């Protein structure tokens, strides 16, 4: 009487819409972009050229200087996030997670506000505030006697990238704050009480007990920051335009790819070189994610409570 197992169509029906949309709009274009990087356009038809585009990108000085400039800037952009945004986020979370602190949720909501604003708002707002024409930044520095420190930061090659990185830090500090805050709350009280009995309290309890326990969350935040930074575009575009001025000093991979793909001023857009840069970005992000997954995450001890 054994009934033959019927094919369970409902599984297919449940999975199909998500898998189809995801495959058609995300995975297929991703691989198609990688494929397009191997082609070029000659007389309005697509010709296979192998790795020629990559040779141009890394070999031709006009392209390679731009690429290394964008990549270097992107690393600086990432370093500032790691060195400023994440420590501030951890510090704010550590203060907020203090059990007897009043108004904690009010502070939390207020600090998170910049994160919900769009890059367009953030980019222009800071551009206006730092502008020498309006004079809010010089005026405020003057009020504390530091007027000599003022410079039109966004217009100076030496400062523009760092300034924009700090604006981006200002915008996104809420994310590490929230994630670390959640991690800190999940540490059981018994552990902290046991430490207190041993005489470990206050700051030393943070360094010796809490910090080691939240290391996995810091790892996740680092990789999220890495991926977000290496495909950033909006803030630079909103504040400095597609040319990432002054003199390409704020150019990062996202703006470089946009310019190449769409063209600007006199240069025509080139989808194949655009794909080549996108492929390079893909490889960079993939290396970062793999380093994290195999190098960091697998070695980190996870504590189960």
């Amino acid at each position, binding site marked *: 009487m054994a009934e033959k197992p019927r094919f369970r169509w409902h599984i297919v029906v449940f999975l199909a819409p998500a898998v189809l949309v995801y495959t058609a709009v995300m995975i297929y*274009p991703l691989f198609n972009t990688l494929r397009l990087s191997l082609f070029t356009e000659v007389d309005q038809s697509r010709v296979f050229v192998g790795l020629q585009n990559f040779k141009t990108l890394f070999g031709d000085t006009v392209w390679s200087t731009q690429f290394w400039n964008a990549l270097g800037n992107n690393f600086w952009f990432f370093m500032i996030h790691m060195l400023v945004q994440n420590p501030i986020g951890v510090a704010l979370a550590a203060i907020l997670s203090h059990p007897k602190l009043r108004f904690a949720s009010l502070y939390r909501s207020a600090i998170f506000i910049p994160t919900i604003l*769009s890059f367009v708002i953030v980019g222009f*707002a800071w551009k206006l505030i730092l502008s020498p024409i309006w004079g809010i930044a010089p005026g405020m520095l003057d009020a504390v006697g530091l007027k000599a420190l003022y410079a039109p930061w966004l217009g100076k090659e030496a400062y523009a990238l760092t300034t924009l990185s700090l604006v981006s830090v200002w915008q996104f500090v809420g994310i590490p704050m929230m994630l670390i805050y959640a991690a800190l709350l999940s540490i059981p009280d018994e552990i902290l009480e046991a430490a207190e009995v041993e005489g470990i309290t206050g700051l030393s309890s943070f360094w010796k007990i809490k910090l080691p326990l939240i290391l996995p969350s810091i790892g996740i935040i680092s990789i999220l920051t890495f991926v977000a930074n290496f495909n950033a575009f909006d803030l630079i575009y909103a504040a400095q335009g597609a040319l990432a001025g002054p003199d390409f000093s704020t150019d990062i991979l996202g703006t470089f790819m946009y310019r190449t793909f769409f063209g600007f001023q006199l240069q025509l857009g080139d989808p194949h070189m655009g794909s080549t840069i996108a492929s390079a970005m893909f490889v960079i992000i993939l290396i970062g994610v793999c380093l994290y997954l195999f190098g960091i995450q697998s070695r980190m001890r996870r504590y189960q409570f």
Partner: protein
Amino acid sequence: MNAVRQNRLNTFAAHGALVVYVLIALFPVFVIVINSFKDRRSIFREPLALPNSESFSLIGYETVLKQGDFFLYFQNSMIVTVGSLFFILIFGAMAAFALAEYRFKGNTLMGLYLALGIMIPIRIGTVAILEMMVQTGLVNTLWALILVYTAQGLPLAVFILSEFMRQVSDDLKNAGRIDGLSEYRIFFRLVLPLVRPAMATVAVFNMIPIWNDLWFPLILAPAEEVKTLTLGSQVFIGQFVTDWNAVLSALSLAILPVMALYVIFSRQLIRGITSGAVK
């Protein structure tokens, strides 16, 4: 006694640090909004003063509402955001249910395949996405944006929702099966209402990045009639860059809807993040 004083000092320092940071976080927004209500002269003369009867002016808002079609942009942003969220939630929940509920060949593999997109940004595929949208005639339609955002949001949605669906009790579903409910009914009638909080979390996570995105509207739908609010304000501000009243008012108008969403959903958002939905 000493310990008490020490404690009070610590609390004071904690509040001090937080207040300073809150001021840093809110100052730019505050400056933009108060100056949008002032006339041009007062914007420059006393940028930090609140608008008073003398300096109050709505000239910037008049320019913005006359020159830019902000209601249309707003409507487009609404359609794109709500549409994308709808598809992310319904398709994501269905796939998550299949992965969480049934054992079948390739279950783990399918889960990994869908999870790929959590780490790899969809922007890398932009060149081919644009080509595809041009070929299918979807370029400069809101559908192009809805499709892209749906694809972008699905991986994390499936991941989060399947975690929650594993917690729904088997007894409940089996009782439904004994009563003769089909698998579809079990999903829509029994399971979906139970994971509503998780769906809300997913919705809130996706809402803000979709609303604020500049890249895809700029590339896939730059035409006037399909501009989103983010792109619309970017273009508008670019054109009116010397008209400070108009720029400040446009910025304030762009801040308004996100702030409203945030006030409504902030509790959900913060609970979502802190409940460890993102692990």
